[in-house]
């Protein structure tokens, strides 16, 4: 009994303290027994009494440790749960969509697709849970929340720490980053599980023809970069979720990540090989348009227009995005002046 008790207390404590505490604890138990029994042998019942008096070993260990052990502390926990829910919902939706798309493309393989779907859900759920939990556990361990907020490295709160009254223009509605994470995860899963093709489905009587927008092999080659891009986008949305307000740091981070996305986007889309060369002819093969007609010609024109202009669209998108967030700086300046 005594051995069990001592073990139960010490194994919860740091390695280097164990031998000393064990000696002390055994001494204490012996002293307590001596008090009850005198010089004789203590019997099981008395040992139990003494141990009961000492109490739950977990509680005693906590007293020795002097602090609680949380994986993710109370302060951080709510945010953790929110992120967990968003990621879970995104994975669910993304996989469901991929599954449905798969069904539409290859209706004959329902069972296979369904098995993939369920396995994907389970694996995806476990992965998502693991990554989110790990991230938050690390944040909890290494980041002292008090260190985050103090300006000038002071430890004590002072009125200078008061954040300005939130300007309505600067607050980020909860729905925005959640939707952002949601759609990013959906598209990410689409790319990863649907092997990265966009396809246009056309029924042509006796089956379904897949018309690739992108060349599947080339997309697969770019997959690591695509994953990085999505990771950056998702992280960006998550940081919005954590702060719920536009701050200078957030604007800067957003700008930097936009640049990263711009670079990756341009890098991928300036490679002409990414587009599926036979796109327009596939439409003809599917019997939707006449191979020599006007529709064919205009479609070809549109197709080359898209191919060459996409990098420009990406750049324009970047500029607009950047302008919009830099615009946030204006009310921020006003806000800094509130009493």
């Amino acid at each position, binding site marked *: 009994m005594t051995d069990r008790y001592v073990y139960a207390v010490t194994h919860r404590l740091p390695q280097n303290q164990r031998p000393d505490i064990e000696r*002390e604890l055994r001494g204490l138990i012996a002293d307590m027994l001596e008090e009850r029994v005198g010089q004789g042998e203590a019997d099981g019942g008395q040992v139990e009494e003494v141990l009961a008096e000492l109490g739950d070993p977990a509680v005693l260990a906590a007293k020795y440790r002097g602090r609680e052990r949380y994986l993710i502390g109370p302060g951080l926990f709510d945010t953790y749960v929110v992120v967990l829910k968003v990621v879970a919902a995104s994975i669910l939706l993304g996989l469901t969509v991929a599954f449905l798309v798969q069904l539409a493309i290859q209706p004959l393989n329902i069972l296979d697709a369904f098995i993939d779907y369920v396995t994907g859900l389970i694996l995806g759920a476990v992965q998502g849970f693991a990554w989110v939990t790990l991230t938050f556990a690390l944040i909890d361990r290494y980041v002292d929340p008090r260190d985050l907020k103090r300006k000038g490295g002071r430890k004590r709160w002072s009125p200078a720490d008061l954040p300005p009254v939130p300007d309505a223009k600067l607050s980020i509605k909860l729905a925005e980053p959640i939707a952002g994470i949601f759609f990013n995860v959906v598209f990410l899963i689409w790319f990863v599980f649907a092997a990265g093709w966009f396809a246009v489905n056309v029924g042509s009587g006796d089956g379904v023809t897949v018309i690739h927008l992108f060349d599947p092999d080339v997309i697969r080659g770019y997959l690591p970069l695509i994953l990085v891009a999505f990771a950056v986008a998702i992280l960006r949305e998550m940081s919005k979720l954590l702060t719920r307000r536009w701050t200078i740091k957030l604007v800067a981070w957003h700008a930097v990540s936009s640049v990263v996305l711009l670079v990756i986007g341009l890098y991928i889309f300036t490679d002409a090989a990414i587009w599926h060369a036979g796109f327009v002819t596939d439409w003809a093969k599917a019997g939707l348009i006449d191979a020599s007609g006007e529709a064919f010609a205009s479609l070809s024109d549109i197709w080359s227009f898209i191919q060459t202009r996409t990098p420009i669209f990406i750049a324009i998108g970047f500029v607009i995005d950047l302008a919009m967030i830099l615009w946030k700086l204006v009310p921020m300046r006003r806000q800094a002046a509130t009493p």
Partner: protein
Amino acid sequence: MQETSEIIAALTQELRRGTITIGVLSQLFEPQYGYSLVTLLAEKGMEVEAGTLYPLLRRLEKQGLLESRWNTDEARPRKYYLLSETGRHVYAKLCEEWKAITAGMVKLMEGSGEL
């Protein structure tokens, strides 16, 4: 809703908790080991559980207020604690604080007629 008696018990415990450290320090001008201290304090009217005292002694040692030594002379090895130089100084200061606090409490309670 808490029973009044429960509330009283909880608040009294809080009150006592604040006095344990001073009480412990006061008895360590002579070397004591954990259990002898428990008995000693109990004799003088301060009931402390061994499970509370032992970790406290360890913490006070870590803070530098106590020094410890394992005594292996007797049949059972025992860890003896003693006030350190710093500990004696801190204890003296704490006693001053205590006197100031009690003086203040007396004034507060005089007004309410409880004293």
